Structures are given as C-alpha cells and as structure tokens.
C-alpha cells in the first residue's frame, strides 16, 4: 500500500529537468558564470570594468558576423563569404576615397562617401549571393565558398595586397568613439542584437525566417514569399558584415589585406555553441550572443593566465568542448 501514493503524486509534479529544457536560450549562462568565476580566481583584474569592457569591445566585430550568420542559418542557408566582406567592403570604400599615394584607386571621391560606400558594398555582395543561390538555384555552401575566395582576391587585387593605413577620421569614428562611457561599437552591437531578437520573435517577417528554415515548402504553402525573405536576409547579412568591417577598421586603425581571414570558423563555432542549428529553423539570437561571449571570455582568461604560446590552441579548443558539454548537461537537450 505504501507504494500507491508515490505513484499517484509523481506525474502531477513536472520534473525540474524538463522545465529547464524549455529555456534553451539560457543553456550557456551557466558556462558564462563558470568562466566569470574562473577568471576572477586567475586574476582579480578580470572583473574590473576596464577589462570587461575590453572583452566586449574585442568581440563586437565577431558578434555582428555571428548575428548575420545566425539569421542566415535560421533561414536554412549558409554564408561563408562574410569573412571576406569584412575586409573587402572597407578596403573598396577606402580605396575609392583615399589618394593613390596611400594605395588608393585614384578616384579620390569625397571622404564622406566612405561609410555609405562600405555599407553599399556589403549589401551588393549579399544581393549577389542571393542572385546565385535563389535565382540560379546553386548550393549556398559552394556559392559563398566561391565568393569567399573571389572577394578576398578582389581585395588583394584592388589594394595591390597593401595594408591601408591612411584612414579618414570619419571611418575611424565608429570603431573608436566612446558614447556614455562605453565604446560606441558595444552600443551598436547591443542595439542591433536587441532589434534582431525582437524582429525574429515578434515580427511577421521574423517568424517567416524560422518557418522557411524549418520547412521551406510548408512556408511557401502558408503564403510566405520565401525567396524574397531569404534574399533580404542575405542582404542584411552582407550589410552587417560591412558594418563589422567598419568597426574593425576603426579599432585597429588600418585595413589589413588579410582582415577577417579565418574568422568564419569562429563565427560558426559561436553560433553553434549558442544553439543555432546548422540545418535551419532552430536557435535564437540571444543564444548566439552567449556563444560570442563565451569565446571572448575564454580568450581573455587565457591571455590573463599567461598560457604558453605552444599550448594556447589546444587549451582553447578543449575549453570550447567543455562549454558545449556543460550546455548539454544544463539544458538537457540534444544538440544538433
């Protein structure tokens, strides 16, 4: 008889494990907390405002690329070319405005045009990707891989492989300025992420992105103009990458010929750690943002801890795996 009440009450109470799983978004928060504690133990400077602001500022460009990639992944597509856009867009815009003595293209257009030109370049690249993927029906993976190589090659061709040093102040401003005590780039990223989260959660077009990524045929049957939405998503992706290029140029004071090279791996790592599915239709921008923060904190802790150069990559990779496992344990959901 003693067994009966237990059996009767058990199903009435939902198990806490299941309830946590609903907050897939927050899966990385425990990992971030652990990293904050570890960082504070390694060096008290870690928790100082200056250091944390540095971490955020260093991650701004990456976070914009992750924002772009996350939306594109949710829509069920791929964009590898973002890492070349971040270099080409500012390089082309600057090439058109700076004198040829500073490795410009010789056109010397007014410097006020630099920022609009940079953003326009990003949008055009996104639109061209969309043309190849949506009209010609080519595989997004291969198209953007080809674009990655073409765009990097264009940058090296246009600049003659030179780093551009002579940057007008207007271009340096965004990556360099301070608004209300914080670097402007942090504000910009925060605002864009907030806008992205709200749009994907509440706007009709934002929900359509999820629907398309989940099942494109069903979405079309439901009356969503799928191609148009995906095209816009790709253009936004190019724009964000160009903006990230501006921020990076401002922060580093030059456009390196290799600006952004190899970054796409980190972008995917951050998005996937943050719970965005490579198959489309799943994941949140907040999760992706957490992924960026995790990577940034790990980098910072490794620098503060003075890990030897020979071991830093192995340890970096191992910590990423550990963060993934921690996220899996705390959210209790299978990752894909």
């Amino acid at each position: 008889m003693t067994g009966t009440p237990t059996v009767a009450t058990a199903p009435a109470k939902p198990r806490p494990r299941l309830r946590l799983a609903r907050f897939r978004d927050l899966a990385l928060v425990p990992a971030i907390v652990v990293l904050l504690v570890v960082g504070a133990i390694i060096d008290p400077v870690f928790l100082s405002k200056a250091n944390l602001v540095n971490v955020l500022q260093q991650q701004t460009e990456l976070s914009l690329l992750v924002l772009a990639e996350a939306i594109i992944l949710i829509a069920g597509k791929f964009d590898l070319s973002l890492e070349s856009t971040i270099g080409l867009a500012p390089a082309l815009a600057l090439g058109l405005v700076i004198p040829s003595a500073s490795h410009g293209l010789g056109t010397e257009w007014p410097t006020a045009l630099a920022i609009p030109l940079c953003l326009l370049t990003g949008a055009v690249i996104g639109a061209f990707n969309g043309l190849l993927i949506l009209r010609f029906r080519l595989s997004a993976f291969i198209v953007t891989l080809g674009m990655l190589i073409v765009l990097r090659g264009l940058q090296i061709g246009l600049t003659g492989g030179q780093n551009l040093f002579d940057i007008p102040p207007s271009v340096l401003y965004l990556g360099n300025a301070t608004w209300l005590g914080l670097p402007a780039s942090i504000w910009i990223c925060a605002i864009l992420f907030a806008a992205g989260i709200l749009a994907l959660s509440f706007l009709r077009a934002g929900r359509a992105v999820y629907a398309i990524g989940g099942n494109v045929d069903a979405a079309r049957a439901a009356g969503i103009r799928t191609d148009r939405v995906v095209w816009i998503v790709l253009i936004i992706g190019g724009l964000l990458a160009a903006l990230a290029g501006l921020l990076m140029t401002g922060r580093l004071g030059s456009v390196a010929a290799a600006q952004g090279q190899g970054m796409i791996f980190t972008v995917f790592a951050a998005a996937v750690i943050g719970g965005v599915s490579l198959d489309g239709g799943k994941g949140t921008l907040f999760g992706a943002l957490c992924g960026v923060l995790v990577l940034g904190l790990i980098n910072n802790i490794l620098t503060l801890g003075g890990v030897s150069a020979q071991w830093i990559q192995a340890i970096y990779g191992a910590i990423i795996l550990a963060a993934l496992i921690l996220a899996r344990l705390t959210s209790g959901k299978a990752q894909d």
Partner: protein
Amino acid sequence: MRYKFRSALAAVLILSTAAACGDSSTGSAAGGNSKPPIGVDLPRADSDFWNSYAKYVPQFAGELGINMMPPTNSQNDVAKLVANTQALVSQGAKAIVMAPQDTGAIASTLTTLESKKIPVVTVDTRPDKGKVFMVVRADNRAYGQKACEFLGDKLGGKGKVIEFQGSLSSINGRDRSEAFADCMKSKFPGITVFAEPTEWEGAKAAAALQTRLAQHPDIKGIYMQAGGVFLAPTLQVLKSKGLLVPPTDPKHIFAVSNDGIPQEYESIRKGEIDATVSQPADLYAKYALFYAKAALDGKTFQPGPTDHDSTIVDVGNGNLEDQLAAPLVTKDNVDDKTLWGNQI
C-alpha cells in the same frame, strides 16, 4: 526562364575557365630567351614587405641579366608552393627561388628538385630538411637580440615588456622569440616579459595589449615582431588609452618593431614608436637572384664573410646561409636614403 539562366550560367563558367587557361599559358612565353630560365615563387601578396620584394625581383633580374620566368604566387600555402614549383619545372625552369613560409613541409619538393639537378635558393626562411644551394636570409635571431638590447637599455634594465610573437610554426617567429627571450633572461633579468601569441594577426595583438594594459598599467615596453601587421593596431590601442605620447613624457611606452616599412619610419619620426629593425627586401631580391644565377654558372661558395657586409654560415645538412645585415633604425638614422622603406 530557368533554361535561360542555366545556359547563361554555363557560359559564364566556360568563359572563366577559358580565361584562367589563357592566363597560365602566358607563363611559358619566357622560353624564347637563350639563357636558362629561372623560376621565382612569391610567398604571399598580402603584406607590404613581400609586395616590396615582389617589386624588386624583376628590377634586379634586369640588372643581373637574368632570364626570369613570370613569378608565381603561393599565397602562404605550402600546397600551392609545391604545385607552383612543379609547374615552373615543367615550363623549363633551371633554377628556382622560393620563400617557403612552412619550413617543414617543403622537404620532399626539395628532394625532387635535387634529383632533377635544379638548384634552389630559399629567401627569408631556411628549410628544416632538404638540400638547397643557398639560403638568403636576414639573421632573425639578431632581430630579437637588437629589440631586446634597445628596450632593455631604454627601460634601464627593469620594468614590464609585452611582446607580440609571430607564428611559432615559422622559423622566423621562433628565432625572434627565442633570441628575445634569451637576451632578456641573460642581460636584463629585472625585466618581466609577457609573450603574446598572435599568429601574425593584428586583431589578436590589439586584444592582448588591451588586456595586459588593464592587468598591468605599468607596462613600459612593446616588442612587435612584424610592423606590417602590428603597428596600426598597437598605435590605435595606445591612442585610445591616452598613451601615445612623445618619448620625453614619462607615460611613454617604448616600442620596437621589425620589418622596416614606410609607416614604421613615419611613426618613428613622429615619436610614436622608437625603433625598428629593417628587413632588407631589396637585398633579399638581389641576392636570391644573384645566387640562383651563380648556381647555374657553376660557382660554389664557402662559409665566411662576403663582399656585401654579410656572412655565409654553414647551417648543417651541407646547406649554406648568407645572413644579410639588418640595420636597427631609430630617430637618428630614420631618414637614411639607403633603407628600402625610404625608396618606395
């Protein structure tokens, strides 16, 4: 509609392949000259230093009367370098000048070239294994050494220094890092060195500098192993922290760079950085071609001093290395017209 798109796409693809083929066939045109052709592979097209080198190569080829084939570019990828070398050989190259940035993976290519009796001159790097006719290289250990002595001197033998290391998988990065560390340890034990791995990426150096300055605001010295990639990010960080002040200001952070590009000289003139070691792009091009020609003429060389202020040393495996001089450039000699950075 769809058919039209497809055929248009096909046309674009065919045209681009045809264009690519047309491009590569021009390479064989060099065979017309009676002198034995020399093939040159450039290691990368995205750094100021190597672009200057690329500019000097045809110039010195003309001066030395060399029949140079159109240079190939391996884009910092050893697999491309191997493919380019094969292409150059099949186009008739009798000697090869290359700058393998990955010094281990080139060994089997060197063995193949040796069996074909094609002499190889490597520029800037020394292969870990394999036979080459001559290595033309600045003494990279001297870079680290000179930077260490300059900083140690300016800091009076005490304080904190941050070092942006290059990639430890390249011999130049390793040589500079080791020489700098050895010298600091033996000559200036009172100086603490924070060695930051950067893989030659400016963004990583900027992040490391920000973090270290937050942790140790009393850092007084910076050693950057490549001005081309680290200079602008470093200056930008220092500027945002209000630390970009002239050497007379007690807040000044002493900075030494390596490379010798024009932007570094500009910064030295302005007092933003204090010194750089000029890596001789012009001499690299000149002596690489000089030795390639000498090899074809059947000349041989012995270890010892040369006629151009450098020393040939035996570096093992029967390989010789001509260690070119790399001058330290400070405010005193920054306007020297013979520095390659002042000639472009």
